[in-house]
């Protein structure tokens, strides 16, 4: 009996003392702290993460926003909102896009938040790189500078997107942003951010290499220059833009590809004409080909035995098709192009001249559609609702975003 008593007393004794503070120390599993990443390899991983948002697609961490709403080419906020394209699909599907199309949107429209999330997450990731690299000890200053130049290129690009879509936005740099303080970026949006976009891109232009061996996806001097020139042009600062563009033309080593369709084929991505491309990849281990231009996941042919089945959004407008009409010299009809429609079915003969690039841009009934055969009228989900053309650049890794 004494023996049992003794054992229990020891157990209780252990019970009372074992709950020391060590017992309560846990580490998150399967994830890393900033300390784990404060080295050359870690910086590269976080920088790749910052590049990764160039496609505008994130996974949805604890929220209900659709990943495709951040699509890098702004098909909703650009093409559909302009006269280039219609929402597509049918009336009841994603009706919010119709609101944007008709300029009836209110500030709570969830699609805008999807775009906003993508660009500001890109900005946060870029700032994470800049902050991290400052703490690293196994890199030279030159190496660090090249990393910072890439991060600032990305930060400038994401802010450019924000400026373009939302106009009055705050500029979040690595001095403002603190990842552990949820309110650190609560700053006013009263200041015009073009100068800061220009400063980031100018730094990148002056500090990035001309080429990266084996890594065409990385930002180069010329990519930064082209983006900076574009920023100038949007502000009508043409002289400043021209200086940089001349530099690119004269010293960049780019040339127009021989065949227009090389700009639409996966095999000729990153060709001699290309200054900077958003890279897409499929079968790379990501679920649902999330790195393969996921931003267009709703924009595939719908019916008619098409290889994909969803969802028939983003259909070219009649106005866009008409804009491919040319005069006898092959030049566009700038003012009169929209007076007569190009029929959607080429069995109804159209006698005028058409720019051949039309059929690289738009799928028309009776015309071969990529390598899927003749364009089937049933590819279009609801012809009565959303016109009769289908967007052409549907192949997964074919889509390019040019800066």
């Amino acid at each position, binding site marked *: 009996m004494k023996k049992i008593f003794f054992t229990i007393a020891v157990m209780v004794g252990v019970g009372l003392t074992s709950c020391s*503070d060590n017992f309560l120390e846990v580490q998150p599993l399967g994830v890393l702290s900033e300390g784990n990443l404060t080295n050359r390899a870690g910086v590269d991983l976080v920088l790749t993460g910052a590049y990764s948002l160039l496609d505008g697609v994130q*996974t949805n961490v604890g929220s209900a926003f659709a990943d495709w709403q951040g699509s890098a080419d702004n098909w909703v906020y650009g093409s559909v909102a302009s006269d280039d394209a219609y929402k597509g699909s049918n009336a009841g*599907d994603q009706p919010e896009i119709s609101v944007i199309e008709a300029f009836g949107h209110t500030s709570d429209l969830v699609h805008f938040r999807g775009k906003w999330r993508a660009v500001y997450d890109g900005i946060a990731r870029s700032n994470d790189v800049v902050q991290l690299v400052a703490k690293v000890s196994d890199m030279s200053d030159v190496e660090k500078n090249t990393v910072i130049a890439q991060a600032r290129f990305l930060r400038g690009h994401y802010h450019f997107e924000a400026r373009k879509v939302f106009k009055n936005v705050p500029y979040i740099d690595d001095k403002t942003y603190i990842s552990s303080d949820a309110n650190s970026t609560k700053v006013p949006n009263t200041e015009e951010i073009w100068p800061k976009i220009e400063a980031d891109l100018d730094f990148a232009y002056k500090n990035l290499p001309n080429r990266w061996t084996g890594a065409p996806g990385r930002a180069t001097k010329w990519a930064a220059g082209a983006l900076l020139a574009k920023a100038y042009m949007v502000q009508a600062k043409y002289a400043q833009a021209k200086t940089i563009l001349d530099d690119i033309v004269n010293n960049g080593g780019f040339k127009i590809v021989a065949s227009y369709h090389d700009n639409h084929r996966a095999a000729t991505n990153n060709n001699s004409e290309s200054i900077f491309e958003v890279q897409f990849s499929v079968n790379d*281990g990501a679920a649902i080909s999330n790195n393969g231009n996921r931003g267009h996941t709703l924009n595939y042919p719908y019916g008619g035995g098409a290889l994909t089945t969803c969802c028939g959004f983003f259909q070219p407008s009649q106005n866009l098709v008409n804009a491919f009409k040319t005069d006898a010299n092959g030049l566009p009809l700038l003012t009169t192009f929209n007076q007569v429609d190009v029929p959607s079915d080429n069995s109804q003969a159209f006698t005028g001249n058409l720019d051949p690039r039309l059929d690289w841009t738009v799928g028309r009934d009776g015309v071969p559609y990529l390598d899927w055969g003749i364009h089937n009228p049933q590819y279009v989900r609801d012809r009565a609702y959303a016109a009769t053309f289908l967007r052409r650049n549907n192949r997964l890794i074919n889509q390019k975003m040019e800066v």
Partner: protein
Amino acid sequence: MGATAGSVDESTYSVIPKNLITKANKTGTNWFDEIFRSAPIQNHQLGVSGATEQARYAMSLNYFNQQGIMDLTSYKRYSLRANTEFNVNKRVRVGENFQLAYGEQIGQPNGNQSESNPISFAYRVPPITPVYDIKGYFAGSPTVLDNSRSPVAELFRNKDNKRKEMRIFGNAYAEVDILKDLTARTQFGVDYNLFNLRNYRANDPESPEPVGNNTLGTFNNYEYTWTWYNTLTYSKALGDKHRINAILGTESIKSYFEFFQAERSGFAVDDISNRYLGAGRSGITNAGSGAEWRLASEFVKLNYAFDDKYLLDATLRRDRSSRFAPQFRTAIFPAVSAGWILSNESFMKGLSWLNFAKARIGVGQTGNQEIGNYNAFSTFATSPESSFYDLQGANTSSLPGYELGQFGNANAKWETTTSTNIGFDARLFNNKLDFGFDWFNRRTTDMLFPVEVQFTQGVAANPFQNIGEMTNKGIELSLNYADKKGDFTYSIGGNFSTYRNTVVKTTGDPNTQYFGFTTRLAPMSVTQAGYPLSSFFGYQIDGIFQTDAEGRAHAAQFVSNTDAAKATNPYNKAGAFKYRDINNDGVINAADRTIIGNPHPDFMYGVNLSLGYKDFRLDIFGQGVQGNQIFNYVRYWTDFPTFGGNRSLRMFEKSWRPGMTDAQLPIPRSNDVISSNPSTYYLEDGSYFRLKNIQLTYTIPSAILKKVGLSTASIYLQGQNWLTLTKYEGLDPEINLRNYSSGSDRQIGVDEGAYPAFRSTNVGLSISF
């Protein structure tokens, strides 16, 4: 689609290439009838128990088999339970209670409250679509109508996706009487779970948007929690009048969870024997991770009673949780309560009708640490979908990257609820009448909420923050009367409770709003100072314009405030919803959304009735909720032009047309994308009364039993949920919180097509030897 009878050559029917031929169901398919059914439940239990001087033991076996009321869903469980206790000697006892359970569940595909589950498809699939096509294969809806999938086909294809769970739980303990009044107890408990699911999704060629590729996901989870509980109990009566009971204890909990899941697609055949990952040829992905949390507590509890009249309880508890950063880990929660048994006072003894009366008062604190396991840590995560990038331009591979996956909040501390309770219990008239009353005030401070970080901060999991203060005040009442007249016994009783919830303070700014979940609609729940937690949020509708002139006279609805814009605006015309201009700026827009309803009830109540006559006994129990509102999200799909699916009768009958002054819905327009925004239209009265249980029991007289060697036996007939009285138009007014790991009360009372409670009739037999 669109072909007339006889004009289609049925010999061209083919699954691959797809040329399925389906005849329209002219009488209409009732999809709810197609997926719901009456289903049997079996529950068998066999137990033995016994005792000797040295030991007590009990063992039971249980088999439970419930076929779901939804076709092809089921739940089966086998369990073994064993309890033993041994007296090692006069002072030492050792024992254990353990249970071993194996369960198999086939649930509805895509889970509850999902827009892609069979219930949601049942209200969306057009009734013109039949269940089967001309060859007896599942029929799909034509793409021009709707993209919903056949719920019958979904359930059929899901029928072999078993969720298998093996669970061991229970504890072992030892107790020692150290002194006559002092007992030590140590108890070690464990809850160990293994989970496996092979979830196969076969091709659905009939669907308007077929998946195109069969897929298998395999999920393996492993989880354990152990709890070590130690107490030292001292019980002593000092003289006749003083009784003391003191407990000193410690408790420590460790919980660990790990999962592994993998997915492949491209299976050559759908046979069950081929549904293993190795047989899939493409779409290879996998994931895995783990989590753990720990809790260490010490407590002391004192009970003191004087003369069986005055009672005093005091508790002091210290909790330390791994979920908070070290400096905020520790919290101390005291509680004290006092009771006065008035009926034991000599001056009350003369009241013969009063058998017992007690007044109670108590104040105490409890803590909440439900904030996820690693709230304090900012962490970087890697995922192919979100942080990989093809820097090499390879097209079919990408380089790994990392991104910030969670914002940490190292400043979070325990949420504390301080409860004040005043109560009174009494039994009167020979204990026939039983009465209880409680008033409570619970004040929650440092309320934890997963606040969305600044929209300019980037995207990562939002940390819980201590945001403010909330109160719940209310009363609870119960009354029961029981009596006996010869062979007839009866009891009748009821209970009533009510509470008022108010968020007292958030950031200090009364306009700060914390939103619930976003569905296809903007959030319909908001938490804001001055209002109840998770109030409904949206537009206030003040009727429907009867004339264009009336529409134009109103504020500009979702257009700029000019006569020209209003003149062509369909939302300023006859037949459109008239939205209230909350901020009086002449324009209706997102700024006019406001708090429109309350998911909290005015009160809740229950009634019970028991009647016994000789060997028969009838028990009836019902409960109700009054005055709460439900946001019927299903109306988004059935009452507005959302996709092309089935529409409600309400939309057919109650949509506005010229002259219809009692319309509830606007004039139907296929491109109306505004009217479906969260608004008062979705709110319904959620009050209900439900007869939860009726049971008739016959106890077989022991005289008869003795002859056949049984000691007791009874037969019962039980009916559950036989009657529900409600005006709510959804499937079931009993709406649970959205299933979410933590912080799920940020949205209350939103019905996304929840799985309904079922009505059951049970026959039972219970025998002891």
